[in-house]
């Protein structure tokens, strides 16, 4: 299948610390893969390795047939991998349009105003004006603008790093719908999330990381029933749910 993101035995070392240990997973176009695990499990490291911010010490990453580990960050972005950040990283002093145009930068030509509005619509923030300064938007809108920016580049794969952080239940429910529509458009989604309710609602498959290693994988219900996962991560949270 073309356009799938495949990590094979991906390993990352920070000095003497092994942050990611021989992780293999595939993000398939049109499907949502959840990546869960306790704090420090290596989830964000996996995104950073995929986007070229940190180098692999072993293993490979491919997009379709093309090997992308070792490429520069901007080359990986241009290859069709977009992301959002755990702590939102918009271009805060620029307006909404410029942020969307930034996302669309690798594509030929200029982002038109109607195309920009269509992106806002897709991200569920059509009420936002294009000339608003991005940093002045309410928090939830900033999160969704960041997703709109990621979509602007027409990516094959989109990686969302805790997109529901700081959102209320209504906003989270809309986020689930948005993620579903993104994957239905044929984009592969990797979703890092702590909220198991959101993971169950949004993901087709789940990979569980702990101490940089994959400890379980399967459907959301398989994973949340797995005793190893419950012990390592879900713990009392799961008992309460």
């Amino acid at each position, binding site marked *: 299948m073309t356009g799938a993101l495949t990590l094979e035995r991906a390993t990352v070392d920070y000095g003497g610390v092994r942050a990611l240990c021989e992780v293999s997973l595939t993000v398939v176009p049109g499907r949502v893969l959840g990546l869960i695990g306790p704090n420090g499990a290596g989830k964000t490291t996996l995104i950073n390795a995929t*986007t*070229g*911010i940190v180098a692999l010490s072993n293993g490979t990453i491919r997009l379709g047939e093309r090997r992308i580990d070792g490429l*520069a*960050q*901007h080359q990986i*972005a*241009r290859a069709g991998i*977009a*992301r959002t*950040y755990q702590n939102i*990283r*918009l*271009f*805060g*002093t*620029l307006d909404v349009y*410029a942020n969307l*145009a*930034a*996302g669309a*930068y*690798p594509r030929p030509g*200029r982002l038109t105003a109607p195309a920009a509005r269509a992106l806002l619509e897709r991200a569920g923030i059509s009420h936002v004006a294009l000339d608003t300064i991005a940093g002045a938007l309410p928090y939830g809108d900033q999160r969704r603008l960041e997703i709109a*920016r990621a979509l602007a*580049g027409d990516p094959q794969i989109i990686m969302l790093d805790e997109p529901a952080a700081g959102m209320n239940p209504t906003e989270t429910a809309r986020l689930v719908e948005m993620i579903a529509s993104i994957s239905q458009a044929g984009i592969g989604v990797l979703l890092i999330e702590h909220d198991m309710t959101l993971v169950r609602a949004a993901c087709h498959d789940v990979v569980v990381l702990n101490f940089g290693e994959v400890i379980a994988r399967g459907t959301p219900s398989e994973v949340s029933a797995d005793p190893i996962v419950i012990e390592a991560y879900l713990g009392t949270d799961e008992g309460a749910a």
Partner: protein
Amino acid sequence: MNLATFYAQHSKLIDQIGLDALLALSLSICLQAGQLALAQAAFMGIAAYVSAVVSLNFHWPLLASILAAMLASTIVAGVLALPVRRLRGIFLAIATIGFGEIVRVVANNLSITGGAEGISGIPPDATTPVIYASLAVVALALYALSRTKFSLAIALVREDESAARGVGIDVGFVRFTTLAIGGAIAGLAGALYAHSQFFIAPGDFGFGRMEQILVWCVIGGVTSPLGAAIGAALLTILPEAIRFLADYRDVTDGLILLLVILFAPRGIAGLWRRGARGRA
């Protein structure tokens, strides 16, 4: 007083305003990409010496000497961009100031640059029309650049290099290109300076000059090329307009800088943007 007498009395000042505006533009392009690269005076000096040497020793015509000077300063800027590519903010500033000092010291000690005595007898053929035609060409080129997608890349690099990489921007290329463009414009100013001064010496291109250029850009508004050019014009005119201040130029420049940083941190450009928003 008619226009001709006014020009006759003030032609030196008018020329200087044009040159200073060019220098401000050359730093402005670097600042727009968020690079506090303070080697403009050195690029200017290198170009001034190259144009002086080819004019005096090889009798090159003005245009050829300007082009040779710009080529030299652009290459030097491009080469300098490589070792400083990992430096940001204050570290980049210090490294580029250091480079400027090296250039000044070298010029002070080479025989081809005339050492501390400098070079004199440069044909004064960079007249007011030549200077302002050059300024117009640079302004037009920068305006054309501002209409391209590349200007967005420049702004994104200034805002957040890492996020810019994340959307597919080759940050290294943007930094290299803006430094090289800055080097080219500073080189143009340097060549014109040499050909309007008759005499050049290493002290003309030292840290004092660099600091002035930076002050113009801060006063004009660091991300606005037009603001930077206006800042240069204002601070060049001010000591002439208010004569008793001329002896205290450094003091008044410093005072104005302080006031701008305290009360209008976005400079002149910020003031008129605020004005535009107020009216809307």
